[in-house]
C-alpha cells in the first residue's frame, strides 16, 4: 500500500507541475469556462425576463459547476488514454510494476485534487456573479461528489478503451461533453430510471444538499447505499469494457501508435 501511495504522489506531483508550468493555458481554459457561464446566464435571464426566479439560478450554478467537474474527470481518463497511446507513454505506463489499474487509479485520484481547486475557484466566481447563496456543507457534498465522479470514470474508461481499438472515433467522443450536460440536467424525481444513468443521481443529490439545504443524514441509508452501488456499478462496467478493449489492443499491437 505504501508503494501505491508513492505512485499517487508521483502523479500528484506531475499534475501540479504541469498545471503550474502551463498556468497561462490553465487560466485561459478556466476563463473560457467562466465566460460560457456568463453567456448562459445572460441568455437565461433574457429568456425569463430578469427578476428573481427562486431556485432556478442556483440550479444553473450548481449544474454548471458539476458539469465542469464531471467533464474534467471524464477527460482525465479518456483523453489521457488517447493522448498517451498516441505519444508512446502509454506503453511505459503498462510496464509499471503497479499494474495498469492502479496506475489509472492514482492518475484519476491526482486529477481529482487538481480539478477540485479549479472547481472551487469556478464555484466561488459564479456564486459571486449571480449573487446566489448555496448550502456549502462539505461533509455532505464531498462524498456525494466523489461517488458521482467515480461513476463518470466509468464513461472515461469506456470511451478511452474504444479509442484504443478504434482510433478514428474522435467526433463521437466530442459528443460526450454534451451528453454530460443532459446527464446533469435530467431530474430523477420525475422519471425513476434516470437514476440508473451515470452522474444523474449524484447530480440530483448534490442539488438537494446545496440548494435544498439537506444534509447527508437527511438522505437516508438506503438512498445512499443505492447511489453508491450505482456509481460503483458504472465504474465496474466501464472498466470491464476497457479491459475487453485492452485485450484486443494487446493482441493486435495497438497500445502504441501503430
Amino acid at each position, binding site marked *: 500500500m505504501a508503494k501505491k501511495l508513492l505512485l499517487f504522489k508521483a502523479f500528484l506531483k506531475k499534475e501540479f507541475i504541469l498545471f503550474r508550468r502551463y498556468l497561462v493555458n490553465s487560466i485561459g481554459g478556466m476563463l473560457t469556462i467562466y465566460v460560457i457561464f456568463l453567456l448562459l446566464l445572460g441568455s437565461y435571464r433574457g429568456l425569463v425576463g430578469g427578476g428573481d426566479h427562486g431556485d432556478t439560478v442556483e440550479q444553473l450554478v450548481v449544474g454548471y459547476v458539476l458539469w465542469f467537474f464531471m467533464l474534467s474527470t471524464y477527460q482525465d481518463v479518456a483523453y489521457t488514454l488517447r493522448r498517451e497511446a498516441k505519444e508512446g507513454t502509454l506503453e511505459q505506463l503498462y510496464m509499471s510494476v503497479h499494474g495498469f489499474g492502479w496506475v489509472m487509479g492514482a492518475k484519476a485520484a491526482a486529477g481529482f485534487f487538481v480539478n477540485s481547486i479549479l472547481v472551487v475557484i469556478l464555484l466561488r466566481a459564479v456564486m459571486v456573479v449571480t449573487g446566489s447563496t448555496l448550502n456549502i456543507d462539505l461533509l455532505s457534498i464531498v462524498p456525494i461528489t466523489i461517488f458521482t465522479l467515480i461513476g463518470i470514470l466509468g464513461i472515461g474508461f469506456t470511451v478511452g478503451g474504444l479509442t484504443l481499438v478504434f482510433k478514428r472515433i474522435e467526433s463521437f467522443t466530442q459528443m460526450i461533453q454534451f451528453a454530460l450536460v443532459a446527464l446533469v440536467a435530467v431530474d430523477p424525481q420525475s422519471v425513476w430510471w434516470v437514476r440508473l444513468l451515470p452522474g444523474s443521481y449524484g447530480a440530483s443529490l448534490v442539488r438537494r444538499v446545496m440548494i435544498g439545504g439537506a444534509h447527508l443524514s437527511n438522505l437516508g441509508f438506503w438512498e445512499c447505499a443505492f447511489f453508491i452501488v450505482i456509481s460503483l456499478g458504472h465504474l465496474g462496467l466501464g472498466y470491464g469494457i476497457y479491459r475487453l478493449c485492452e485485450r484486443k489492443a494487446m493482441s493486435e*499491437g495497438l497500445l502504441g*501508435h501503430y
Partner: protein
Amino acid sequence: MLKVESLQKTYPGRRGDPPVKAVDSVTFQVKEGELVGLLGPNGAGKTTIVKMICGLIRPDQGQVLINGFNMTSARSSALENISAVLEGNRNLYWRLTVRENLEFFAALKGKNPKTLTSDMEKYIDFFRLEEKINVEARKLSRGMQQKLSIAVAMIANSPILVLDEPTLGLDVQASNEIRVLLKRAVAEEGRTIILTTHDMSVVQDTCERAVIISDGRMIADDKVHNFLELFKAKVYQIRIRGHLTETQRLALLSMNEVAVESESHEGTVLSVRLEDPKILYDVFAVLGQENSFIESIDRQANNLERVFLEILRRSGGGGQETAVI
C-alpha cells in the same frame, strides 16, 4: 536471464488485408551481463518480438521468462526485472524536465524518489545530463532525448534492458555516444541488454552476440566474432568486359568459391572468396582461355553487412529485398 521460447505472432489483417505473420517460432536466451543484438531488415518482426518480451503484445504462442518470471502469469514480478526504451522518441513526458522524468518513471517502477538521490546523481553524470537537468524533454536535442530515455529505463535498476532501435534517427556523434554508453552499462554495472537494429554497424560495434531475424524467423544466433570468422576469407570482385562463354560459365560455377554476381551489357561481375589463394590462378586460367578482358579487381571489406547478406542468401530468405537495408 531472459528466455524467449517459441514465440509466435500473427496480426489480423485490417480492412480486408490478409493476416501478417510477424513472428514465427523465435527462441533465444540472453544471459546475465550479455549485450545481444537483434538484427534484421525493416519489417522483420523485431519490434513485435520486443513488445512481446515487454508484455505489451500478447503472443499467440510461446512464452517469455524474465529472470524466471513468466510475463503472462507473473507479470508484475517480471516487470520488476525489465525496463524498455521503445522505438521512436516518445518514451518520455515532453513537458517534464529531465529530473522530473527520472523521478516520475522511477516511481512508476516502484522506487521511492527519496531513496533515489545517489542513483539520480549517478545516471545524470553517466549520461552527461547535468547541464540540462531542469530543461523540459521537448527542448532537448534528439540525442539528448534518447540518452534521457535510456537513463529513465536504467534508474529503477531493472537488471534487463530492452532497447528498440536505440540509434535510429540520431546523428553520427550521438549514435556513437550511445553505443559507448551501452557498452559501459554492461561492463560497469553488469546490466543485461538486448537491442534491436537494422544497422549492422551498431551490432558490430556494441554486441557480443547477434540473433538474426528475417521475415519473422530466426535465421542465425551466434557470437559476432564467429559471424565475422565464418567469412574471414577475403573476397575479391572481378569485373570483366562482355559476357562469359558457356564453357567459362560452367568451369567457374564448378568452383565453390566463385559466384557470378551480375551479368549485363556493361560487363560481368564475379566474386571470388579467397580461402585458398590458388583459386585466383584457376579463375584467371578460365578467363584467359577466351581472352576475357579484366577491367578491375577490387578487394571487398569483410564486414557484418556482407556476412548478413550471405547468411540471408544461404537461408534462402530473399537476399534481394534485404539489399536495400
